[in-house]
């Protein structure tokens, strides 16, 4: 389980785009670095991030080693009813993480 933070406005306007901010704690290992013993550290990045609202996908991303450590993503979504924003991600080692936050309608 990996750590992440999610920021969603507490209330949103119906049908109007609102911003979702996600910060995932992850080293985003490029595979080009070496450890203290000169062994190469294998590539391990968060390769996929999916955001759903009420089970419906609103945004997704495929990241590579060109994304900075502790990947930060800010994007937009719309909603017609109060619900929950859910963000899930996976890294190259198969580790998963999930954060969610509820929002209401203004």
């Amino acid at each position, binding site marked *: 389980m990996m750590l992440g933070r999610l920021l969603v406005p507490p209330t949103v306007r119906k049908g109007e785009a609102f911003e979702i901010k996600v910060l995932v704690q992850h080293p985003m290992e490029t595979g080009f670095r070496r450890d203290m013993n000169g062994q190469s550290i294998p590539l391990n990045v968060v390769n996929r991030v999916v955001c759903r609202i009420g089970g419906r996908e609103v945004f997704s991303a495929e990241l*590579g080693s060109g994304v900075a450590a502790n990947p930060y993503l800010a994007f937009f979504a719309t909603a017609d009813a109060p619900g929950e924003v859910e963000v899930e991600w996976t890294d190259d080692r198969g580790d998963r993480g999930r954060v969610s936050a509820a929002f209401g309608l203004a």
Partner: protein
Amino acid sequence: MKRRHFVAGLAALGAMPAAAQRFQPAQDITPLLRELTAGATAQPGGIEIELPRIAENGNSVPMRIAVPSPMSAGDHVAAIYIIAERNPRPRVATFHFGPASGKAEVTTRVRLAGTQTVTVLAELSGKRFRIATTEVLVTAAACLDESL
């Protein structure tokens, strides 16, 4: 230690960072673009890129991309690709949107291996494409220091 050994050691030290840097020349991204657009021509413009002109630290460069679009079922932005031609892996990130996104806009932080042109390709519904580039001067590039 003999003087000549010391001098040889110094020379080796001087040579090390150059070897570790593994200078990355800009790659030709045309084949990659052709693959992403499936041969279609991308219209230049129509993409807003916010990237500092001078990035002090290539390990984390803030980048915002916005593609103006009504984001309706029939006319929306489906995907945004970030391509950095001098990175060891030019495909930095891909973002997927739908009408429920409301706005085709994304902010993230990228790694840049040196001063280069960053290309953004946007895929619109109906397999239409837009393309835009921006220059960025990177003072301390990412991916160069292997020791850390």
